[in-house]
């Protein structure tokens, strides 16, 4: 949505293990008004505001025992209506059919397709809605293709919360050019609207002893495409931070420039809305048994201004020690104001914000349930 870079209202959409909250502020981003909980007790994996109309909210939900669904609001969460047909795999008569455990990721499609959305699920599945999220259908060859099924592995091969399809990215120049990522299962792209996909794994490392040519062994954590340069992508992977410049197909491990004591393992990556050389990550401890906590209990965001050649530690205002939380792959985001606002939510239920591109941080909410996702949007 077009807007002045220094005005408008900012909304944070916070999805948690036990409900959803909306936080509202103005362009100064000093004071925040909380609205919630919505869906108290429901597991919310992602909540996204449609940037094409500025008013449609989709929330991917389930409860501990009820099946997964999607809710839709067109009045900023005052009322919600359930999808008529949530994402679900095609029925298989022979008992081999898969079941969607939860919808994990929501992506609005290209601006020329105003009612189209994509959804990624756990276990790995790709779905599409053509009516604004009311009804969903399996999309593309991925869900039932034998190669993809093999690369997806089983639930035992996936992450603790289940293997997932995420980082569904639409090329702003071409609605048929999509990227997707699977944990596990690797990074893939389609240039024909999902009729075929090509693995995009060049240069990515895998855990020692495994074949990097096999998508099964790849674990991309989060991929983002630069808004002002759609030929550049950044990826936070299980095995480092990477950058890819198209039409090239070789990822470069730019995380090698991170301090050795911190490393370049983490879940999220967020990008500057106007400068393709700038992005931010939130490193976590990926040593030995993989604690997945802030290294040394000292959380910090790291940012680069030169496409990953150098990284700067950004921890002013964050706890100086004994802080052992993690930021999950969907739980860090940015707004589009100038200066850019950065936000992240923690596994311990704290919501942190910076209105100056990471220079100074403030905790704007605590005691929330475990935060799964944070999305930032600017309206007006």
């Amino acid at each position, binding site marked *: 949505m077009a807007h002045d870079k220094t005005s408008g209202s900012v909304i944070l959409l916070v999805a948690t293990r036990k409900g959803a909250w909306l936080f509202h502020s103005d362009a100064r981003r000093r004071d925040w008004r909380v609205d919630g909980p919505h869906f108290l007790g429901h597991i919310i994996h992602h909540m996204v505001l449609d940037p094409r109309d500025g008013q449609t909210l989709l929330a991917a939900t389930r*409860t*501990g025992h009820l099946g997964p669904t999607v809710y839709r609001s067109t009045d900023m969460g005052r009322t919600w209506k*359930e999808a008529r047909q949530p994402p679900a795999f095609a029925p298989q008569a022979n*008992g081999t*059919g*898969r079941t969607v455990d939860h919808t994990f990721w929501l992506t609005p499609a290209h601006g020329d397709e105003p009612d189209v959305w994509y959804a990624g699920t756990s276990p790995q599945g790709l779905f599409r809605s053509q009516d604004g999220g009311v009804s969903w259908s399996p999309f593309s060859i991925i869900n039932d293709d034998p190669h993809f099924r093999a690369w997806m592995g089983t639930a035992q091969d996936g992450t603790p919360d289940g293997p997932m399809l995420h980082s569904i990215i639409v090329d702003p120049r071409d609605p048929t050019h999509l990227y997707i990522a699977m944990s596990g299962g690797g990074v893939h792209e389609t240039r024909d609207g999902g009729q075929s996909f090509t693995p995009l794994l060049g240069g990515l490392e895998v855990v020692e002893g495994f074949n990097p040519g096999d998508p099964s062994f790849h674990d991309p954590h989060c991929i983002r495409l630069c808004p002002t340069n759609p030929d550049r992508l950044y990826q936070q992977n299980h095995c480092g931070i990477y950058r890819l410049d198209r039409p090239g197909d070789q990822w470069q491990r730019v995380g090698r420039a991170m301090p050795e004591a911190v490393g370049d393992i983490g879940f999220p990556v967020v990008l500057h809305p106007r400068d393709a050389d700038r992005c931010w990550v939130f490193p976590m401890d990926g040593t030995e048994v993989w604690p997945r906590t802030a290294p040394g209990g000292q959380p910090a965001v790291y940012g680069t201004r030169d496409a990953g050649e150098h990284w700067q530690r950004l921890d002013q205002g964050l706890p100086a020690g004994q802080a052992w939380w993690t930021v999950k792959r969907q739980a860090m985001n940015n707004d589009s104001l100038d200066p850019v606002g950065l936000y992240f939510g923690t596994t311990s239920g704290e919501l942190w914000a910076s209105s100056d591109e990471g220079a100074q941080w403030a905790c704007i909410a605590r005691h929330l349930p475990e935060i799964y996702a944070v999305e930032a949007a600017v309206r007006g």
Partner: protein
Amino acid sequence: MEVLIPTPLHAYTGSARVQARGASLGALLADLDRQYPGIRFRIIDEQGRMRPHMRFFINQVAVFDLDQALGETDEVVIVQALSGG
């Protein structure tokens, strides 16, 4: 026949006890979904399997088959076995 609905599904039915029809458990759930759109998918997955922790009792007896026949006077209870934190 009368169907007892567990609390997590009251958002669909608006009450604990509702009336539904069907010659089998599967047909009964289809009728519930007709009356309360979306309720079936929350308790039966896309492969036609009962979701974990969802239990069905007919006249106090646990049933695991959607083809189980139902009579006009049968009493159906849907239970969500709570667990977790």
